[in-house]
């Protein structure tokens, strides 16, 4: 696992199961207000990663693609909420702004698919992941942290992965 710089790291997944396990570890670290951006084409493993994150975070609800509803909310028994926003069908930045991402961040962590479509309205501090299809089972992922909260989140993620793999 090469470390590109202190605030970036790469992960090569050999199976959907491994991608999901990475998501579980990330999900367990998330706090209210955390913004995780997941950029990658169809089939890059975004949904699989989100399924893991929701499980690791402790969601009761099943993960589904929010392409048509734009935002899914997954709940935890204590009432906390994990939001999952798919920007694929958002037609303008104004429309995205009216979804009120700040209100979602006030309620819990927020995951965004196709974040590059709404980048100008996103908070500057965030964890950004690029996911790529390499072959049938293989996916490569690169995570970059911006802001102290996300640097420590990425450090913690790196540690759980080094510790366990």
């Amino acid at each position: 696992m090469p470390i590109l710089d202190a605030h970036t790291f790469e992960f090569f997944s050999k199976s959907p199961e491994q991608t999901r396990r990475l998501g579980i570890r990330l999900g367990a670290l998330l706090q209210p207000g955390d913004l995780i951006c997941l950029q990658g084409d169809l089939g890059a493993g975004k949904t699989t990663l989100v399924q893991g994150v929701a499980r690791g975070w402790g969601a009761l609800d099943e993960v589904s693609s929010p392409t048509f509803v734009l935002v899914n909310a997954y709940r935890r028994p204590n009432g906390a909420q994990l939001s999952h926003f798919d920007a694929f069908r958002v037609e303008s930045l104004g429309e995205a702004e009216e979804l009120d991402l700040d209100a979602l961040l006030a309620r819990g962590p927020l995951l965004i698919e196709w974040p590059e479509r709404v980048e100008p309205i996103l908070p500057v501090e965030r964890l950004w992941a690029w996911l790529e299809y390499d072959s049938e089972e293989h996916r490569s992922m690169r995570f970059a942290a911006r802001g102290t909260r996300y640097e420590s989140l990425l450090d913690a993620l790196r540690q759980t992965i080094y510790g366990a793999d």
Partner: protein
Amino acid sequence: MLLAIDTSTAQIGLALYDGATVPGELVWQSRAHHTEQLAPALAGLLERVGVTMDSVKALGVAIGPGSFTSLRVGLAFVKGLTLARHLPLIGIPTLDIVAASVPLSDRKLAAVLQAGRGRLAVGWYKPTGSGWQAYGPAMTMTAEELEKKIRKPVIVCGELTAEDRHRLARKFKNVRLASPAQCVRRPGVLAEIAWNRWQAGKTDAAASLAPIYLHVAGGLPA
């Protein structure tokens, strides 16, 4: 009796107003739980005051600026009540409520509220014979940008964080900051403005009454 509802920001406000008294007024801070809290809070207020929705003959609502989700919650709720009970509806710009609670002065007034991510929504008001009058559209800016715009004596009133206060206080010669208690946006004041508009026959159509959204990033594609 008129029922007034303000969900413009993290602060939620409810008030009952009968033209002579304010039988009930409720203000609290909610962290993105407006949907869950609004209806039970209204039921609780009505019960405590000992009236039912049957006594409510008109509705006043704050229409923003504010935060997208919280404004929608209040407007949707009030429109539902209006349509179900066939009540007249009056929408009041939120910064007018802030301005109306400030005693008239010969200075101009900047009415503010929190617009998210450390920015303020700011509306300018000048004193007239009939009270504060808004001039120009409300805009979003940081406290620092507001400070830079102030070159003459003004009053600043509304939702201000300790940091905003500190920042604006540096212009002490030109800025008079309203006290934190004066800065609370009172739903009783909203109710009074809405009552007067109702008595003057100036009501709004529920179908077309829209919130005032301030888009933050300039030059966004429509």
